[in-house]
């Protein structure tokens, strides 16, 4: 493999890794706070892409604004609407179960079912026809020394890094972040300290869902075809990324996302592309069998 194609593959891996990392951040935050695998998160990504589609089409066709203005409006609209969806799932489905103190298994099943409802409800309401995302900004292809990349790819990668640093700042430097870490450290002592646990959980869902929405928007801009099941597989992959990094750890999720992106791009470079999912899931199985806590996770001992 020549240097140019190697760099090309690295850029592609970084782009895919950015999508995975953005979604994986949402998984890992919810897991860190609630110890719940939010299986509906992949479909929140899909909702994000669809909200972006409707917002962008509405702004472009009805308001007649230019592409850059439409993009500037679409980003906040998508993030707000999608986080509303995420929070309402938490309110309707997860919170009552948490209040009742239901077994964790029931919450996980509920999450899985919420994802299915989002997917198939979308299919039932909007039909199976694929939607083409309108182009908001013109795509430039730059070629430097045989390596070609687009401005969109760079935007995706830069956005992922900015999001990570913002999240890292929130978690380590702000009071909300401190409360989040406190909840994941000891869930029972936190309410006694006067920390409103429900509000913190809502903030967690808002952050996670808006990152997923951003990923959905960027994904729709890069691969402008939308279908109801687009979130299922990419959501699972992002989840693999979160687990590989050690679920519950933000750095782990971010690095895991890029690692998975790199593995997939390398698989496609050497094998037929249909082996991509097979190898991604095999990586998950192997990691979970040998190091169930992931790269950054800390093993918890069971007390008898």
């Amino acid at each position, binding site marked *: 493999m020549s240097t140019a194609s190697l760099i090309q593959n690295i850029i592609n891996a970084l782009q895919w890794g950015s999508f995975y990392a953005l979604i994986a951040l949402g998984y890992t935050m919810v897991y860190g706070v609630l110890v719940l695998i939010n299986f509906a998160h992949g479909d929140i990504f899909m909702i994000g892409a669809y909200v972006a589609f409707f917002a962008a089409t509405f702004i472009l066709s009805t308001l007649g604004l230019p592409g850059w203005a439409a993009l500037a409006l679409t980003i906040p609209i998508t993030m707000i609407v999608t986080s509303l969806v995420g929070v309402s799932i938490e309110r309707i489905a997860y919170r009552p179960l948490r209040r009742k103190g239901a077994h964790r298994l029931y919450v996980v099943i509920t999450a899985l079912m919420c994802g299915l409802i989002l997917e198939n409800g979308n*299919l039932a309401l909007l039909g199976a026809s694929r939607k083409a995302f309108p182009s908001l900004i013109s795509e430039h292809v730059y070629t430097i020394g045989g390596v070609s990349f687009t401005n969109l790819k760079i935007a995706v990668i830069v956005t992922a890094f900015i999001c990570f640093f913002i999240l890292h700042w929130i978690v380590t430097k702000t009071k909300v972040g401190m409360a989040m870490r406190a909840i994941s450290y000891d869930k029972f002592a936190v309410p006694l300290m006067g920390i409103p646990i429900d509000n913190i959980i809502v903030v967690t869902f808002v952050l996670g869902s808006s990152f997923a929405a951003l990923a959905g928007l960027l994904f729709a801009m890069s691969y402008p075809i939308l279908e109801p099941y687009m979130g299922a597989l990419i959501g699972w992959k992002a989840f693999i990324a979160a687990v590989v990094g050690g679920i519950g750890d933000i750095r782990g999720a971010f690095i895991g996302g890029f690692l998975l992106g790199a593995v997939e791009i390398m698989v496609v470079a050497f094998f037929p592309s249909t082996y991509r*999912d097979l190898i991604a*899931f*095999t990586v998950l*199985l192997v990691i*979970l069998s040998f190091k169930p806590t992931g790269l950054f996770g800390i093993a918890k001992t069971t007390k008898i």
Partner: protein
Amino acid sequence: MQRYSVQLILIALGGLITYLAYEEAIDLYIISVLMFMGVNIIMSTSLNLVNGNMGEFSCGHAGFMCVGAYVSSVLGVLLFSKNKILAAPLLNPEMAVYFFPFIIIAGGLAAALTGLLVAIPSYRTRGDYLAIITIAANYIIISAIENMNIIGGSRGFMGMKRVVNSMEDVLYLPWMVIWVFVFTIGTVWLLRRYTSSTFGKGVNAICQDEVAAEIMSVNTNKMKTITFMLSSGLAGVAGGLFAYIIGYVNPGSFNILKSTEAMVMVYLGGMGSLSGAVIAAVLFTLLTEGLRFADVLLHYLWFVPDSWHYSQVWKWVIIPLILIILMQFRPEGIMGNRELSDLFPGLKRFYKFK
């Protein structure tokens, strides 16, 4: 009388269904619904062994079904029918009558071996992580079969109808009805025997407390291996029967939605209740067919266009919704952790099912 009542009822029921199918007294559609009911009973009771009795959370049950379906249909078609891979059948097609149950069991054995994919990681992980492993196993199986072009890849595999036809050529009987019935009863009987045996009591012990069970001399790893293999093997049997009923398999039909169907049945029936799983499977089959019926009824309304098929689209909104509502308001399901004889102690006088 009490000793043999269950056997007598089952023989009578099986005989009646077979006779009705033989005489074509009941509609072909009803027969196929009955057969799917049998397959669903196998699916739900076998998943109930892992999710209910052992308390693990397996949500990739359809993957094992897929292995069973492919192995038994490829084996059957290679042995007893003209095919694209080897052209001529390996054995005389008339032998299919005798070998059919062994083909299904072979599919079950292959699925049981695939069950090791989940059983071995389960030594060290449980709970959410094991759930992920089972889903990953499901995806791996589907993805692997999609990449095997020799058996059709993602286009699917067919030709099982020819095997069934060659069975009927030898002796005209509704073979599929008979075998689905036999395997369904066999599964329920086997699971009942397993969970009520001295060895199988360990399965429930693992559900209660794994560490305590290990201290009480239950070999948890051995237990998990056997239970997972039994459960996935039975799912493979269900898959084999499913493939021969439909006559066509493709990997896409064994995805997470199919696994969800099995999960809905288990949690609807109640975790750890064998009779609950059977009742839930029957109810679930009736519900899905009822949705189809509702679809037909809706089209009698003048304002519903012919091209709209509500139920098939909304089915996968309604089924998860049922499960969510169930989790919110009655997480223990219809039967809870009890069997039919616990719920109605009076019934004990009339039957004994061991």
